[in-house]
């Protein structure tokens, strides 16, 4: 049975749907990567799961269950949030409170959900800071967020997300602000936790190098919809959807082209509203007459793709 099972998720403003008909499912210990165009609705999908959408945005779904609990019940979601489901936000400064020390914030999360005394919360905080590779944890607990470098702050955020030993971690671009060596360390830590604790992970990332090594499954979003969802070998070796194919061709690879060679892009821009037909049609090199009708997400070999010609 899957730990998380989402069906027909929509996020919309009064005027416009921003996330359309998203299905996601995830088992314990599994990693799902969400990739896709900037502005395609990845963060909104995650925020909708956590019931953390900003004002003016509404969510609805035909199905949203986490370990048998109905996520459409706001009270239930609120109880899960921060304890069994945790989230790492893209910019740690917005999630950490600047006026409290790292220690105060880590302990508060634990005591809010687990109760227990300060000493117990503190022991756990120290243990986790060590776990995420922060040396001299006693000193770090007494520091304020702005006194930590970007990498340390990001690790502190990860420690905070793990305080209550969640079953599901949603990490939105957890390593984009970090250099590649720190990135590798944090990704390895996440992998270890999955092995040890059966943590399920939704990893939102633009870095397809990261997705190709971390994902069990990878869902690719475009203009508010999932256009392809398959296991990692399929997505990165034999992608079925023309958007995924075009996106992978754009990845610059070290040592592969002469300096000064222009980078490959997908000509054109993603539509900002909802258009008739396939959303990728205007930029798709395979577009044909059928494409003026919007394709459904159809089963293809080892996954699903939203294209009339994918098989």
């Amino acid at each position, binding site marked *: 049975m899957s730990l998380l099972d989402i069906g027909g998720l929509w996020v919309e403003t009064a005027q416009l749907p921003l996330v359309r008909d998203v299905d996601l499912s995830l088992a314990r210990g599994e990693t799902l990567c969400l*990739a*896709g*165009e*900037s*502005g395609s609705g990845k963060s909104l999908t995650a925020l909708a799961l956590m019931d953390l959408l900003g004002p003016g945005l509404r969510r609805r779904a035909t199905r949203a269950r986490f370990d048998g609990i109905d996520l459409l019940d706001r009270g239930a979601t609120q109880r899960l949030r921060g304890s069994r489901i945790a989230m790492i936000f893209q*910019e740690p400064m917005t999630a950490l409170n600047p006026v409290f020390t790292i220690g105060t914030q880590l302990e508060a999360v634990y005591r809010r959900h687990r109760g227990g005394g300060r000493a117990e919360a503190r022991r756990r905080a120290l243990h986790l800071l060590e776990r995420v*590779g*922060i*040396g*001299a944890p006693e000193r770090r607990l007494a520091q304020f967020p702005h*006194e930590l*470098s*970007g*990498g*340390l702050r*990001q690790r502190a955020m990860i420690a905070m997300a793990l305080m209550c030993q969640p079953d599901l971690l949603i990490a939105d*671009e957890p390593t*984009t*602000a*970090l*250099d*590649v*060596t*720190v*990135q*590798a*360390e944090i990704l*390895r830590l996440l*992998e270890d936790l999955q092995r040890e604790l059966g943590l399920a992970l939704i990893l939102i990332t*633009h*870095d*397809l*190098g990261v997705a*190709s*090594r*971390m994902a069990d499954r990878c869902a690719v979003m475009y203009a508010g919809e999932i256009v392809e969802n398959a296991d*990692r*070998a399929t*997505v*990165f*070796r034999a992608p079925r959807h023309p958007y995924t194919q075009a*996106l*992978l061709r*754009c*990845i*610059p*690879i*070290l*040592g*592969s082209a002469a*300096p*000064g*060679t*222009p*980078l*490959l*892009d997908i000509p054109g*821009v*993603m539509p*900002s509203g909802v258009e008739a037909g396939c959303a990728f049609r205007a930029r798709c090199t395979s577009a044909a007459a059928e494409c003026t009708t919007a394709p459904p997400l159809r089963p293809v070999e080892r996954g699903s793709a939203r294209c009339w010609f994918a098989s």
Partner: protein
Amino acid sequence: MTPLLEIEDLVCRYPGRRGGFFRHARPIHAINGVSLSVGEGEVVALVGESGCGKSTLARAMLGLLKPAAGAIRLDGTPLAAMTRRELARRILPVFQDPYSSLNPSKTVESIVGLPLRLNRVPAEERRRIVRAMLMRVGLSERHLARRPHQLSGGQRQRVAIARALIMEPKLVVCDEPTSSLDVSVQAQILNLLMQLRRELRLSYVLISHNLAVVERLADRVAIMYFGRIVEEGPAAAVFARPRHPYTQALRSAALSPDPDQPLPSAGLGGEVPDPAAPPSGCAFHPRCPHAMDRCRVETPDLREVNGIAVACHL
């Protein structure tokens, strides 16, 4: 020929924590003796560990931070001798986050036209220049009246670039200009920067964590570690055969897409050095696999061999 921008033995400090017992805390040396030059039309990239001082160096180049020691010269004139306005039309920034760096309540036309207004360019001419610049960066009339939240991330970054270029600067300092964008939009923005470089004879300082992008775009790269440059040279040559152990670690941690490969096992390990208690000798020695006794006591100088400069005792 004097380079466009010349940085000499730059030192930048932040005050240590104040108040209570920490009143006399030691200042943090974010930049600790950096020399770097940028030629006309050249692209110089800065790469390095999170917190090593890249943004601090960028802020100093933009005149937003007063160095504690050393000098920065533009066309031979010290920045310190230039007025804010003079500086602000010749060196301009493009920041990482197109969401927070644009005023959300203003239209695209007014955001891009602001530098012209501050320089008292008449309204009619301003309209003309703004339209021409928006065309240049791949936006159109349709976008003039929009506000930032009505644009995509890529379009917002185009607006930021248009605003930076409207005064026809000599040097543009880009601090992670595309790290929040997908690879296709990233390519569009970076190709645009390179096209404008040719058309307007611009120079760039490009801060990026993406080694493949740096290799493609930059003429030279400076690898930074803990407030110093540890390796510098032509970008392609530096990444093809990294000399400094830190550059080697960076190189091996860069991930190309490959579903058959696990995460790289090699990593730096250890801890980012604490600026309040800097390591002795070479700042990299506590994490360096090749560290020798000498590395613990003596700070290596940057020495050039065949066009590549390295600061390492090996």
